[in-house]
């Protein structure tokens, strides 16, 4: 277990190649990066800089071509696919740009899915836990609404509740406010910030929005697969 304030995630010399032979391109060119417990950081960079690839590698959704990932002290390179899935489920939460809720399910069920997948069963107490999380993001009133009937802001709140379902150490958010209007984006950002403070969950946000990025603790900038700047924002 990482100490409070210690590294919850450490990347060492991460590279990632796509394609083979002539068409082979190196998207990540040796990334070293640590995230401390309770940190609220932004990852910025132009399109094609490798942000999403880096996020997926951090999220164990993709394996690096080279380098090492230490997540909560565990070297993830030694885990097989099922081990990765389990570890991902219990350690990491995701919020995607287009919320990616499962349309066949209600808001409540979407929040329950990581819990049910983790246990392999759907159990009654999961409903209560999911309801509490929806309450946490201010959406308990719409718990039984179909995912497809939620507004963009509501859906993103459900997605945030879902990312918290397994009590993750880190939440990785890929442009979580990318397709929301400014006011809704601010509300969602405020919610992320609140969860980060209250629960000491580490957040890494990929964003294009410098205005939002400047309200985080730290801005990491990625250009052409390399970290070109990494600085701490003044406390606000």
């Amino acid at each position, binding site marked *: 277990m990482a100490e409070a304030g210690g590294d919850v995630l450490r990347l060492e010399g991460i590279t990632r190649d796509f394609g083979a032979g002539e068409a082979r391109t190196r998207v990540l060119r040796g990334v070293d990066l640590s995230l401390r417990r309770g940190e609220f950081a932004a990852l910025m960079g132009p399109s094609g800089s490798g942000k*999403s*690839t880096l996020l*997926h590698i951090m*999220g164990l*959704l*993709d394996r690096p071509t080279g380098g090492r990932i230490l997540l909560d002290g565990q070297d993830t390179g030694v885990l097989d*696919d*099922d081990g990765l*899935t*389990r570890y*991902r*489920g*219990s350690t990491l939460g*995701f919020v*995607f740009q287009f919320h*990616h809720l*499962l*349309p*066949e*399910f209600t808001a409540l069920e979407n929040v329950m*899915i*990581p819990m*049910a*997948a*983790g*246990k*392999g*069963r*759907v159990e009654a107490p999961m409903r209560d836990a999911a309801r509490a999380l929806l309450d946490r993001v201010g959406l308990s009133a719409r718990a039984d609404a179909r995912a497809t009937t939620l507004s963009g802001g509501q859906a993103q709140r459900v997605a945030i509740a*879902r990312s918290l*379902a*397994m009590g993750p150490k880190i939440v990785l958010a890929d442009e979580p406010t990318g397709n929301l209007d400014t006011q809704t984006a601010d509300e969602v950002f405020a919610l992320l910030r609140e969860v980060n403070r209250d629960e000491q969950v580490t957040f890494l946000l990929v964003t294009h929005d410098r205005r939002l990025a400047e309200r985080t603790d730290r801005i990491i900038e990625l250009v052409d697969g390399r970290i070109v700047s990494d600085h701490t924002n003044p406390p606000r």
Partner: protein
Amino acid sequence: MRFEWFIAIRYLREGKAQTALVLGGTTVGVAVLIFLTALISGLQRSLVGQTLSAQAHVLVKAPERVARPLPGPDRPADHVEKVPDRIRSIEQWQRVLAVLPAIPGVVAATPTAAGAAFATRGPATKAVTLRGIEPESFSRVIDIVPRMRSGRFALEGAEAIIGSVLASDLGVVVGDKVRLATPEGRGDVFTIAGIFDLGNKEVNARWVFVPLRSAQTLLDVPGGVTTIEVKVAEIFDAERVAREISRRHGLAADSWMELNQQLLIGLRSQSASSWMIQGLVVLAVALGIASVLGVSVIQKSREIGILKATGTSTGMVQRIFLLEGALVGAAGSVLGAGVGSAMAIAFAGLARAPTGEPLFPVDLTPGLYLGAAAVAIVTGTLAAWFPASRAARLEPAEVIRYG
């Protein structure tokens, strides 16, 4: 509830049009399976039943004597000719009869002494087949008692039981007397004790049952019998039983299958074509399920990626889609069983004899339903295999990014 069930059931419920499509296909497939099998097995059972109504499953006779060369230098002739057909008795038939039930598959056996004769009443004379029997053991081999038109199936002293056609040809009823005589001139007068109808015109016109002892006297085979008629437990086992009897006792034993080769060839080719049709139907259903599930996996790629990103293992994803296939098979077999049974019953209702009785029964057995359900569920699961593996192989990072 297991996680995979939860997801699979919801996917099926929400994928209304797709689910309706595969369910419809599976239902039709199972219905065809049930309908064809019920019809064909009913039809065949009725055909075989009719054939065997007046025929024992296995007929045991004395071995044929054949022409054979005479060996040795000082021979009176080149070879021994086949003896002209004369009624011959099975040697030591009592001993054979006693040990036959020991052969596996044999249910009952009865001795008969049979030969040609004439039945005469007043001016009417008919050529008949005289069959000397022991009514009690005979009725265990051929189920004749329920098919008695009048009188009873029992013989005491000089009594005879004749077929319905012969009875009307001779104009006799139970209690009347008839004279039975062999071509050699031995004859006697018998009282009609009963009249049967075995559903076969030839048999009804020719068979005359008399006590075994009377037949032995008339046919001049004192104490002998010409055939032993055997009933077996499983009718399609008759050929094996016949070979076994032949091997153990050195007698000629013919199964009903050998005596009715044409019928058997007909039944077999009917079964073969029915199996082929059913195989093609199952294949069509499998392709239908596979293609619809395949489309659904492509449509759901991103969702599958999300499921994987939120802790659903590769095995779980695979099981979700296999389960969808199995559930479609299970639901399709319930619906198909209903539709297929209704079709079979309706069809059997259309084909009726002039008397209003169905021409043949449809065989709707629990085994048929279980078998069809098993085929449907296995087919659904196998058909889902390819789409399910495809879903399981999806890389979450790729499908989330590119869909």
